């Protein structure tokens, strides 16, 4: 068998195993291990690699950002930030038609700025915003749909765990990826608010109007969100800003990992100061961080074995060469990839998808000519991939965000949640088209912050 046939057979068998409910990390690790064994003719090489591969993977400095951001997000969920954000957003937006749902989007965006995970954002904001919307007579569909969609802002707005993994796989600068994600993330929040506005006009019974809040109260509730804004600005500006004006070029205050550590400590201090974060909360935050960290690193380890198999078959390079000699239009290939993400997103989680596909897709994208520098193409493609894999979190049948929100309101049938989220999926797709057509939205801020 040639390398590419072997890689294809391995990929197919691995997918079969995954669909038969074998844990994804195990399916990747075993396929990679057996694949290298077959190519090399003996298990010596993969066995020798395994002596240090686990510890080397788990103790990589670029990956150490992941558990620290998870810890920050967990402290944030347990420190009352969500209710402060929602209160402020509601004071400012509640008097509009469908305003409380818009406020939920705004609060999700704010929370996403300190939390890198969609599920944590959806569940935390759901606990605060769902009872409020139901109390005010918002329809079941709108109130669950908007929260499931809003939850994805957790990962679309930096910090974002998926972007960290993408940056490592594609060997890109994580700071530039975060900066690039900022405007598309804000665009996502605006798009969702606009969707709510259209929704309540098409279905007038779905949402209603709350009483207008005086500006003095609005100012007060806005000030109460300052700690969240402060933490976000310190973390983002600390890793991306220029702190030394005497030197040319950006001079950041700390590395992304250090930024995550600063964020975790500041969030913990905030929680302790407001007395929302007690001893039990710290223990729960640690256990939740432990579970999510182990899950992510185990998949990364499996993917490392699988990718060493792919690398020795040289299938990614052959595939990339094949695609470039076929003369497909670059945008046709890009669209095919984004569609593949949407289809796979219906059954798979976003992290596994990124780990499985980027080693194959990225070499192909790199050889195509989009009229940008290689780095710009990589950043732009990463943001597009991030958005389409996140759509998978809100598309049936396996949208994790839908399950999380629906489990908070057991009396709402799942089909209503499906119906409610559909307009937001449409808004996601419109945004993908906009970002594909105008790469400048993604790349402009990177160019401003990192000139040259």
């Amino acid at each position, binding site marked *: 068998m040639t390398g590419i046939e072997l890689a294809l057979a391995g990929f197919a068998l691995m997918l079969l195993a*995954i*669909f038969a409910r074998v844990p994804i990390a195990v399916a990747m690790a075993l396929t990679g291990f057996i694949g290298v064994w077959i190519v090399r003719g003996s298990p010596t090489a993969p066995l020798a690699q395994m*002596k240090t591969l686990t510890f080397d993977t788990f103790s990589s*400095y670029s990956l150490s950002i992941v558990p*620290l951001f998870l810890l920050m997000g967990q402290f944030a969920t347990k420190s009352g930030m969500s209710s402060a954000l929602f209160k402020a957003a509601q004071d400012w937006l509640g008097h509009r038609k469908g305003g409380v749902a818009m406020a939920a989007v705004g609060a999700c965006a704010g929370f996403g700025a300190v939390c890198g995970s969609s599920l944590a954002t959806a569940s935390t904001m759901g606990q605060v915003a769902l009872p409020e919307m139901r109390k005010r007579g918002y329809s079941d569909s709108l109130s669950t749909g908007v929260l499931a969609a809003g939850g994805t802002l957790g990962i679309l707005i930096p910090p974002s765990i998926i972007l960290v993994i993408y940056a490592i796989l594609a060997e890109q600068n994580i700071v530039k990826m975060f900066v690039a994600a900022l405007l598309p993330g804000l665009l996502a929040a605006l798009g969702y608010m606009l969707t709510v506005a259209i929704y309540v006009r098409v279905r007038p019974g779905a949402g209603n109007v709350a009483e207008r809040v005086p500006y003095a109260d609005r100012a007060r509730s806005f000030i109460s969100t300052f700690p969240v804004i402060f933490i976000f600005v310190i973390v983002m500006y600390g890793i991306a800003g220029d702190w030394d004006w005497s030197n040319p070029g950006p001079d950041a205050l700390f590395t992304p990992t250090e930024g995550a550590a600063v964020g975790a*400590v500041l969030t913990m201090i905030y929680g302790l100061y407001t007395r929302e974060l007690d001893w039990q909360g710290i223990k729960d935050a*640690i256990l939740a*961080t432990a*579970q999510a960290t182990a899950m992510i690193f185990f998949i990364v380890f499996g993917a490392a074995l699988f990718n060493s198999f792919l690398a020795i078959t040289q299938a990614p390079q052959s595939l990339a060469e094949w695609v470039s000699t076929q003369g497909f239009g670059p945008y046709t290939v890009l669209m095919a990839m984004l569609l593949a993400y949407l289809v796979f997103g219906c*059954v798979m989680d976003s992290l596994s998808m990124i780990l499985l596909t980027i080693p194959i897709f990225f070499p192909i994208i790199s050889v195509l000519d989009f009229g940008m520098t290689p780095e710009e193409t990589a950043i732009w493609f990463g943001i597009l991939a991030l958005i389409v894999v996140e759509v998978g979190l809100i598309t049936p049948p396996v949208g994790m965000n839908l399950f999380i929100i629906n489990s908070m309101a057991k009396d709402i049938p799942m089909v209503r949640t499906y119906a409610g989220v559909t307009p937001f999926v449409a808004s996601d797709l419109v945004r993908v088209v906009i970002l594909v057509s105008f790469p400048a939205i993604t790349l402009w801020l990177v160019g401003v912050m990192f000139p040259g």
Partner: protein
Amino acid sequence: MQIAVKAQERAGAGAAALARLLAYLGGAILVGLALMTVVSIVGRWINTGWVRSIAGDYELVEAGVGIAVFAFLPWCQLNRGHVTVDIFTNGLPARGRAFTALVGDILIAILAYVIMWRFYLGFGEKFPFFSDAWRDRLSMGFKPFFPETTYELEIPVWIPYGLALIGAVAFFLVALYTVWRSWNRFARGEAQ
């Protein structure tokens, strides 16, 4: 046929206690690393007199996170936290789903064993002590000529490896327990 249900429940309590303890310890390491990093940044920023950044802070983060991740693995496995795609097996009857869960746990236990076994050998290559006779008995391989250390602080690498090995052993033990638990659930026809 179920195997020793009472003993399985007792073992389960033990596995949970072990996994939780390790998760807390790993979490304590993580919080400690975050605090140390903040202190180090402040020190680097002021950078006068005795207020400086902490030497080797990156190394400590790397080693600490490596140890913490190993310590987190048992807790994740005990809670069935590893990601699976359930959509195509959801249509199976309860016993069928219990069977897929059992297969998954067996495969994880095998992988956990390979990880532990290979990592132990990796540890042996860094561990510069014991006579050759003892190393043979413990199948630790050849004694390294010099103990490998980290770059800046010159910490012998066998120390973080050894601490992480505790997590790897616990991961294997907990994975074995989950196979037992899955078998009994399968025998009862209880989906998981």
